[in-house]
């Protein structure tokens, strides 16, 4: 089996890992909230190192149900995510420059594990915010928690909450998918060659 990637594959891998630079300029994730009295919606954008959007308005509403005040300095992830992304970019570039299939495989596995960790992290924070409520909160509904969905839609009291990747998040998904496609196409081509 060929240990090296073809030139087009290497260009695509380089392109994919280079595209990760988008996360420094675009939000990675978004949470949208809609309620009858918020027909225009409230949006919170999660970047790799900060939050933006209607965070303060959302905090103002959350205090009725006793949710903790959301602020960027509560998330240690924001401090190291930049380095994690740089590491991924470097790993991808290494795969592209050296052209070694094994490095690409390592890169893909790392990306998948990283993606799962991100989702787990979102779940963990959502669980914490949704469950650890101030026992003195004004509005307390027996048995109700306010954990936002990790991905997709959920109804929380009068709010419809939607959680989805935002632009940079989709670019990461796209980049990862592209690398996987490259891997499979290489595997497919090699298998044909070997058959011959």
């Amino acid at each position, binding site marked *: 089996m060929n240990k090296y990637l073809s030139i*087009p*594959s290497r260009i*695509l891998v380089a392109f994919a890992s280079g595209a990760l630079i988008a996360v420094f300029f675009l939000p990675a994730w978004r949470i*949208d909230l*809609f*309620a*009858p*009295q918020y*027909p*225009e*919606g409230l949006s919170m954008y999660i970047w790799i190192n900060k939050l933006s959007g209607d965070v303060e308005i959302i905090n103002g509403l959350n205090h009725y149900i006793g949710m903790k005040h959301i602020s960027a300095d509560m998330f240690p992830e924001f401090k190291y995510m930049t380095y994690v992304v740089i590491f991924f970019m470097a790993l991808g570039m290494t795969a592209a420059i050296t052209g070694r299939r094994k490095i690409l495989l390592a890169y893909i596995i790392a990306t998948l594990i990283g993606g799962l960790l991100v989702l787990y992290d979102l779940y963990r924070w959502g669980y914490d915010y949704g469950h650890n409520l101030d026992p*003195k*909160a*004004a*509005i*307390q*509904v*027996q048995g109700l928690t306010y954990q936002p969905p990790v991905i*997709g*839609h959920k109804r929380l*009291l*009068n709010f*419809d909450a*939607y959680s*989805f990747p935002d632009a940079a998040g*989709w670019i990461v*998904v*796209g980049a990862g*998918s592209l690398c996987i*496609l*490259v891997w499979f*196409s290489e595997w*497919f*081509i090699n298998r044909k060659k070997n058959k011959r």
Partner: protein
Amino acid sequence: MKIFQPKNLQYLFIAAFAFFFMESCKPKGTQSAATGDASKAYVAPGKYDEFYNFVSGGFSGQMAVYGLPSGRLLRVIPVFSTDPEKGWGYSEETKPMLNTSHGFVPWDDAHHPEMSQTNGEVDGRWVFINGNNTPRIARIDLTTFRTAEIIEIPNSAGNHSSAFITQNTEYVVAGTRFSVPPDDANGDVPIDTYKQNFKGNVSFIKVDSVSGNMKIAFQIRTPGVNFDLSHAGKGNSHGWFFFSCYNSEQANTLLEVNASQRDKDFIMAVNWKKAEEYLKAGKGRKQAVRYAHNTYSDKTHSATSKIETEITILDSKELADMVYLIPCPKSPHGCDVDPTGEYIVGSGKLAALVPVFSFTKLQKAIADKAFDGDYEGIPVIKYEAALHGEVKKPGLGPLHTEFDEKGNAYTSMFVSSEIVKWNVKSLEILDRVPTYYSIGHLMVPGGDSRKPFGKYLVGYNKITKDRYLPTGPELAQSAQLYDISGDKMKLILDFPTIGEPHYAQAAPAGLISKNSLKFFKIEENEHPYVSKGEGQAKVTRDGNKVHINITSIRSHFNPDNIEGVRVGDEVYFHLTNLEQDWDVPHGFSVKGANNSELLVMPGETQTLKWVPEKAGMYPFYCTDFCSALHQEMQGYIRISPAGSNVPLSFSTGKTPTPAAGKTATPATK
């Protein structure tokens, strides 16, 4: 370049499709058109509306009158706030109406209008409305559509659970939102001594069945809590009054947290017939207080303000069988009684259900002494013992309930922004409809009386957002009209309102329009400065006071040339409108007067006070377009320097002649 095979491209398409699919999951805008037949809200030009709708003006301090179903604004009646357009609080005659024990107060916050009733049915005579901030109750006369009386409430602050009435308008009640140290106690105490020093009070104001005049009959002294809303019993429960109260925690700071801790607060049930017995038996305690009582006379066209100095207190702790507490979940707001008088609906604004209490069960619980201890000496009835049932999962943030004549209730849901229709007996939810947005009060004509007219329902919203063209940061306030004649509620009209609308009332138009006054009879005018004819117009000097008895009739004033008035004089224009026909008001304004205009109805006299500060020529004119020659309706008053010897004179249509002595002779004679 094998990667660009069609087969591989497929994956990219799938990824792209997933992306767009996820993005399109978000809801469409909730902006909505009418759901029903919008033409039902159409009233053709020249046609009358079916109902008068009296809507509180909230922080405008006034009350607005709309026609239903058109939502057309017919009139804004000035009540607690000055209104320069109508001279309310500016004319000498109306200033005393805004007098209080704190002096002249030019503003208040008006929340809950309530129409007078006879035998539990709206009778179209008066509307009562509360002033929240400096506690007062006003009575509006529906023959003149003017405020006829305002009474201040002692021992109170934040007069919120007011102005609700008993079924024959025997009483109008006023409950204090803030508990405070009583007026005769030293109020200069630490705020954190709330539990010792702060008391609640509900006042029962007797209404004279003929004149409508109000008099505080008694106050019931209660533990220090916050009274929110109230409604009288009717039919079977006539003789009882129900008040919702929150902050049974007795917090004095950060109430949004500290007054929301208990699982249940209370509905306070007052047996006012029993209270009357105690009052008669001399069980009340006299308390020295000071409160203003202002009345307006349509004969003298003037208000008088009297400071009253005594009140009778009935103590809920000492007098048994008069007051009971029914536990009600989570800071109850609305407290509404159905048309039969049997069911009492409490709306815990933070509760996830709506409890409905039964008057029969309440009586039984009292007879059986089914009590759960007491709260500062008042028996607390066992929740289940008085409970008819709970409306389950009604929506979020239940606030207020109104009723139709078919046994249905309509509850407003602030948080989930909807109206929920349910059956009072079965407690089954029948329908729900969204409001735009965050409804507060709602109203069915006669919907809190024994005879509702369940054709329309109006929701009064707290948020409008995108419903109207934007007008800067402060947006239109809004009401929404629903057709409730069928099984399903249907939105048929949005209309903007003044101030911020809270509660409202409505009655069939015929009940009120037939009594509407067209003009005041000039021969019945007993104003001390009236001119009953142009011949009586005159100018008199009394020291530095100059009284100008002036008349208006299309299209001139008499007099319209006035001289001999000096800087430092107090000038009083007593304008009598001599017209005796429908819809011919005259206005009056003077250049530079630090005052409003006068707007004087036919047969009426009103007075504008003016202290000129600079010598010169001052024109005055009619501000209400009264006739083809309205623009000719004008005059001059000459102001001379202090100490000037220009003689006092006045005229119309002639060269002025000097005044003789103190009183000038009319030049027209």
